[in-house]
């Protein structure tokens, strides 16, 4: 069994995944900043340090109260907020040393895709990763995820969170904007920026925030923001799908919880005869289970690190990590 520890941003989580890729336990605690404020890295890391002991204990207890023993300890080594990453890495090193079990560093973004692929039983998909940290369209080739398209500035999660804060909507922004959007009907013209397979969202954010300050109807604005931002991504996904000719489309990451985005990317996949595999909503956001799932696969491929060589990397690109376990069997 592999114990995974997640602490890249707002969530501290721990989870056990067994050798059959089954999620045995998954315990998470998320730091929620006050309305209108973003994540403060130090405050989030203090939250993680406070809850870590309790979360790990719960993750290591079976439903009948007996304790479970991990064979491998995986921790999220990046990318993410430095102070938060260090909490998870410290917990991982301590457990690895105390239990005398190998330590495995995991890339948080790769882990989002791994858990989505495990659950969907996807083999070699075109992967769409949408979260606060990533907005990327990827295909796997020669041991690594290759970026086919991505955001040139802020991520889709950033866009929705930042607009949500501007409009004083509760965190996370994506869910709040989605709720407001259900009440909107009128499409307001907003900047639509697709450059080849890339998107750029900063102009869209500025325009939407300016209209909000000028008292545009919030529901219509949320509706238009969502339609425009998701259409941009869907178009980039469609281009990438035609170019790469994959027969599976995977949708993962926190923003994958959006029903409207699932509907749109699903429609693109269907249109081109590809099967569509959105990550189940409970595993879309950051969680311990993604790290445990990815850590197990990495360990089976021979990836591990000694405590003294273990590291955290706040900046770490998806295409810099060897992922030899894809295509999946």
């Amino acid at each position, binding site marked *: 069994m592999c114990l995974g520890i997640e602490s890249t941003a707002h969530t501290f989580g721990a989870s056990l995944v067994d050798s059959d890729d089954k999620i045995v336990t998954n315990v998470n605690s998320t730091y929620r900043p006050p309305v209108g404020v973003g994540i403060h890295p130090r405050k989030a890391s203090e939250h993680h340090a406070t809850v870590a002991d309790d979360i790990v204990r719960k993750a290591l207890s079976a439903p009948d109260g007996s304790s479970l023993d991990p064979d491998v300890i995986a921790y999220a080594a990046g*990318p993410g907020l430095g102070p938060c990453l260090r909490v998870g890495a410290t917990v991982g090193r301590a457990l690895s040393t105390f239990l005398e079990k190998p330590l495995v560093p995991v890339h948080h973004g790769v882990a989002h895709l791994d858990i989505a692929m495990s659950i969907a039983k996807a083999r070699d998909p075109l992967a769409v990763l949408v979260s606060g*940290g*990533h*907005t*990327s369209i990827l*295909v796997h*080739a020669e041991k690594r995820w*290759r*970026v*086919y398209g*991505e*955001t*040139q*500035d802020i*991520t889709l999660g950033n866009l929705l969170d930042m607009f949500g804060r501007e409009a004083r909507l509760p965190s996370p922004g994506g869910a709040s904007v989605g709720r407001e959007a259900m009440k909107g009907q009128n*499409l307001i013209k907003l900047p*639509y920026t*697709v*450059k*080849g*397979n*890339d998107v750029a969202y900063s102009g869209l954010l500025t325009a939407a925030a300016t209209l909000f300050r000028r008292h545009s109807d919030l529901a219509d604005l949320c509706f238009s923001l969502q*339609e*425009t931002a998701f*259409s941009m991504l*869907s*178009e980039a996904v*469609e*281009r990438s*799908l*035609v*170019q*790469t000719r994959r027969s599976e489309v995977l949708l993962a990451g926190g923003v994958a919880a959006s029903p409207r985005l699932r*509907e*749109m*990317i699903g*429609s*693109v996949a269907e*249109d081109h005869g590809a099967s569509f595999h959105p990550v189940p909503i409970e595993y879309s956001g950051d969680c311990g289970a993604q790290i445990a799932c990815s850590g197990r696969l990495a360990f089976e491929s021979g990836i591990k690190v000694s405590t003294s060589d273990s590291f955290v*990397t706040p*900046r*770490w*690109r*998806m295409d810099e990590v060897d992922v030899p376990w894809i295509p999946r069997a």
Partner: protein
Amino acid sequence: MDTASLTSTALHRGAEADLSLATIGPWKVIVKHRVRKEYRNPILDAQIRHDRTISEASLIHEAKTAGARVPSIVGIDIENNTIVMTHLTGTVARECLDDMAKSEAQKLLRSVGEQIGLLHTAGIVHGDLTTSNVIVSPSGPPFIVDFGMSRRSVEPEDRGVDLHLLQRSIIASHRQNPSSMMNSMIRGYEKTAGKKVASSTWRKAREIARRGRYFAIR
């Protein structure tokens, strides 16, 4: 022109348009119809298809006037979001680049560079420059096609996007050595765009590549 009465046979289904083949008089023509996208809000969808049809037709025509190897516009049907252009003979570069010997591939990339230089000098940026949009011609330089994302611009930023996208498509879809391919491309580009523009565009392209998420500051 009215394309509704034209008899055509389906040829290729792209990301945003259907291509079909038809005959008008002695000419074989390509009919490019921008189709409705189910995922997109109908108002946004109509606006995007309308704007791109007009802009693509006029930019292809401008590119032709500037001496670039592009199809000729035969007509447009704005109501149906359709462009009719001349049919080109050749192979899509995405299909044949990896089968080429290194020197042959370098020669191709050099003339692709020359074509991009011609476009940029004419104030046109392609906006979706991948090996799927280059047609290797048996008689003369390669054709550049699909101007659906093109714009008028002389900004190094927009020109840089073109080179960045081409480079990424070579890295992501091909086995040829990317740096050797891009070196050849730049030599061709210099020839038609000039050394000064070439160096500023290439600098920008590298900067754009680093703009992606989580590049360490090195």
